[in-house]
């Protein structure tokens, strides 16, 4: 085990980034034109980076597997984006955002990175507004804010329940402008299937043109992976169907360390699983916890009666309901961080209080909010002695104006009206804090290979706060990478074009081709989907909301067996040189199966509970997580070794906290 150097600049926390930027070598415009950059992924991180680097004058090639950059998974983000603007004058500041993020992450993130994120957060909002992103505004015409879990200020900017869409379309428009200028070459419907390393440096990728099926060689002086998270290793998640780990995993196999891969965010408010063929889970934005109250019946008989359809939730009186978050965490109530809220739901359901057929659901109830808003509005409108019906109607109108599209989405999926009966929700896999290890400059352990956005591990520690992923993706893409990638490239001015005729390119292409032909020639009879589903079940049961030594060891054995079966029994129809989504899926699932084992290994080696990582062996008598700072205040960075994901070598980056005191997170 060796320790890793994160290249954190010297000096006081608040000055590090400014000083670092000031020391960055400048590259002349003429020289920038001689430098090529590959950006894989065009979500918030990738679109922002590709646009900004092209504006600076580099030649950019951008890739995405969807038919257009506008469709990246970022489009689905609902609730909002944080920024320390302090427009509400409620005591917010850069330091508070930094502090909340470190604390929310359960002290497993790097101070310097998080502070930089908080510093640039305000510029993100300025940038987006200048691009014409239509954020919500108040009646005075100023930007509106809402609050999110784990914090006590209102710093979240939003565009109804479609914030990700509006931010991505903003970044996409910036990218489109550069495409029009010829500064970005856009390769949509292309999937990166190998990383090419020449003389120890990332120098290109092998991409499959998903329409023709051809393998293509692309070279560059630097490669940026902005390929998103790997939540789909669990099969069911809130991620888009195509979200995958392939790009990151290929980089891992070529020397990029994976950091804290087991840190997964399980989001407390998703629509519960309803059947075997379910392909994905739908998130109900965390913003709903501003007004919704979470509960289960107090008595088991009531839970049973509801499950069997003999009672309805509205039949239960207040005193028969257990608002368990308000009970356990009076200070934050329904707004505790995600990991805490998810575990609490699991605890109640495991104890037999779940309220749907599967016993895995709790209520999210808006009745109190509707009544409160209704009364307020009646008062504003000067209606004296309003009837209960009038109050309801007014209240429902206000709730609709805030969450209308989410309520509609819920009703479309479940065929239930959430204005009249509480929503049913349950935790689901949502986000991966773990990812490719990067230093302060967002560079991985492979020189010239950078990782941005959800693909890296950098800012959220063991738990991400709501509305911080969009912030991080855009911070990395607009404001960090353009500087740090430039610094790296300054040494490459004399290098000239990178040839794609080298043995390294040929070998990478061969590896990819052999793998794909292997799938197509397999004599099996089982569709890829079946293996993915099985992997998901192992991961959810053993590496999900609660983890234990025995469970994780079993999972590792099971995943290894599944992998073996996969290569023997999988059936992939179609041909290599054609549009073949089953072949694409086989490649992705193969990588998930290797990643899954590494995640279990990581979870096994981290013998503490922190953030989203809950080891059953490490909990207090009240069932709260017990962190072990003396032994585990480090980033676990895994190096691929011996051609076997299970033989990965652990490297530790010790986390040094100079500006915050490590305390037990308490939301009580």
């Amino acid at each position, binding site marked *: 085990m060796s320790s890793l150097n994160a290249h954190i600049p010297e000096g006081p926390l608040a000055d590090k980034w400014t000083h670092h930027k000031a020391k960055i070598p400048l590259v002349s415009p003429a020289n920038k034109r001689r430098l090529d950059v590959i950006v894989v992924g065009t979500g918030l991180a990738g679109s922002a980076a590709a646009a900004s680097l092209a504006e600076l004058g580099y030649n950019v090639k951008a890739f995405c597997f969807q038919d257009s950059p506008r469709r990246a998974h970022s*489009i689905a983000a609902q609730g909002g984006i944080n920024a320390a603007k302090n427009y509400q004058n409620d005591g917010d500041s850069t330091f508070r955002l930094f502090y909340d993020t470190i604390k929310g992450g359960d002290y497993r993130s790097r101070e310097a990175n998080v502070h930089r994120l908080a510093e640039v957060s305000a510029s993100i909002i300025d940038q987006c507004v200048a691009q014409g992103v239509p954020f919500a505004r108040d009646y005075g015409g100023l930007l509106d804010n809402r609050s999110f879990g784990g914090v006590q200020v209102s710093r979240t900017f939003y565009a109804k329940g479609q914030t990700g869409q509006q931010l991505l379309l903003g970044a996409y428009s910036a990218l489109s402008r550069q495409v029009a200028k010829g500064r970005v070459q856009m390769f949509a419907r292309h999937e990166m299937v190998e990383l090419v390393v020449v003389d120890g440096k990332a120098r290109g990728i092998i991409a499959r043109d998903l329409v023709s099926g051809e393998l293509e060689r692309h070279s560059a002086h630097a490669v940026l992976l902005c390929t998103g998270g790997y939540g789909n290793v669990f099969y069911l998640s809130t991620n888009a169907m195509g979200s995958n780990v392939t790009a990151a995993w290929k980089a891992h196999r070529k020397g990029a360390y994976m950091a804290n891969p087991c840190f997964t965010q399980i989001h407390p408010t998703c629509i519960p699983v309803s059947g075997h063929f379910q392909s994905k889970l739908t998130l109900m934005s965390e913003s709903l916890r501003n007004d919704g109250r979470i509960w289960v019946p107090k008595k088991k008989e009531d839970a049973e009666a509801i499950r069997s359809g003999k009672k309805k939730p509205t039949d239960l009186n207040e005193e028969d309901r257990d608002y368990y978050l308000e009970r356990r965490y009076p200070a934050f109530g329904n707004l505790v961080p995600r990991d805490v809220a998810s575990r609490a739901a699991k605890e109640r359901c495991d104890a037999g209080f779940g309220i749907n057929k599967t016993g895995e659901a709790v209520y999210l109830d808006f009745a109190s909010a509707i009544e409160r808003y209704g009364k307020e509005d009646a008062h504003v409108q000067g209606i004296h002695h309003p009837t209960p019906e009038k109050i309801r109607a007014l209240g429902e109108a206000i709730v609709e104006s805030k969450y209308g599209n989410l309520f509609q989405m819920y009703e479309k999926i479940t065929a239930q009206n959430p204005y009249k009966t509480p929503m049913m929700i349950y935790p689901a896999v949502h986000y991966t804090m773990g990812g490719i290890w990067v230093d302060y400059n967002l560079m991985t352990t492979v020189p010239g290979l950078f990782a941005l956005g959800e693909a890296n591990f950098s800012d959220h520690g063991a738990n991400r706060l709501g509305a911080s992923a969009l912030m991080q993706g855009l911070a990395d893409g607009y404001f960090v990478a353009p500087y740090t990638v430039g610094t790296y490239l300054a040494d490459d001015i004399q290098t000239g074009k990178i040839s794609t005729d080298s043995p390294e390119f040929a070998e990478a292409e061969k590896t990819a081709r052999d793998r794909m032909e292997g799938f197509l020639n397999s004599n099996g009879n089982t569709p890829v989907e079946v293996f993915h589903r099985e992997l998901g079940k192992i991961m959810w049961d053993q590496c999900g909301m609660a983890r234990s030594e025995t469970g994780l060891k079993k999972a590792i054995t099971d995943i290894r067996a599944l992998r073996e079966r996969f290569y023997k029994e999988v059936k992939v129809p179609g041909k290599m040189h054609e549009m073949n989504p089953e072949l694409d899926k086989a490649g992705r699932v193969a990588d998930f199966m290797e990643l899954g084992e590494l995640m279990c290994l990581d979870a096994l080696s981290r013998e503490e509970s922190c953030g989203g990582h809950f080891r059953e062996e490490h909990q207090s008598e009240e069932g709260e997580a017990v962190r072990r700072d003396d032994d585990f205040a480090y980033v676990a960075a895994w190096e691929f070794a011996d051609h076997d994901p299970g033989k990965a070598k652990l490297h530790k980056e010790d986390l040094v906290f100079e500006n915050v005191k490590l305390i037990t997170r308490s939301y009580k």
Partner: protein
Amino acid sequence: MKFTLNVWRQNGPQDKGRMETYQVDQVSDDMSFLEMIDVLNEQLIHQNIDPVVFDHDCREGICGMCSMFINGEAHGPGRGVTTCQLHMREFSDGDTITIEPFRAKAFPIIKDLMVDRSAFDRIIQAGGFVSVNTSGNLPDANATRIEKSHADAAFDAATCIGCGACVATCKNASAMLFTSAKVSQFALLPQGQVEASERVLHMVNQMDLEGFGNCTNTGACEVECPKGISIENIARMNREYLSVSLTTK
């Protein structure tokens, strides 16, 4: 539930294509339409038939990738939903369902139900942006107040998901609803004013170059648009276009 599916199969842009009929059972009413297609595809793989190729990603109505023409309607029956948001409970057990791709000259078929909508990207590249570089020194976001009603209307226009249902629905395969939604978003915001004239000229010009048809105001697009983009946007774009083309002539 059981269904008979008539599905368009076409092995690439040059192929003529044909309808094939398949039976699916084991469908439950809380499945989404695409999950029903997943069931069909698992079944086809077992039968040694190539699965049906279709576009999809988010499966929650926001990425705009799914694009099926179901029983003669873009995104199928039901208003305000994309194909991925359509549930089998909207159909009756035993129904025959016809599934085709979004058809338009500007949307060539790639394979089966998958079409090439990159023409939309090129319309945006022609002017669907505000020209500001990333700098970190822009005016404070609250420096300019924007009337809430304008901000809200801009947002409504901006919610277009670029799915192309409007084009597939229109008998002229016009892209006016899509293009006008972007033009309107910026026309309603002060940030968009500076380049307003060039924007509308370039975007409309690109739309014509791509081979989309003319708008004859049938309003069919608005009815099938899953995001409820209003044809008022088309009127707004026409006004913008007219005023520029008059002043530039």
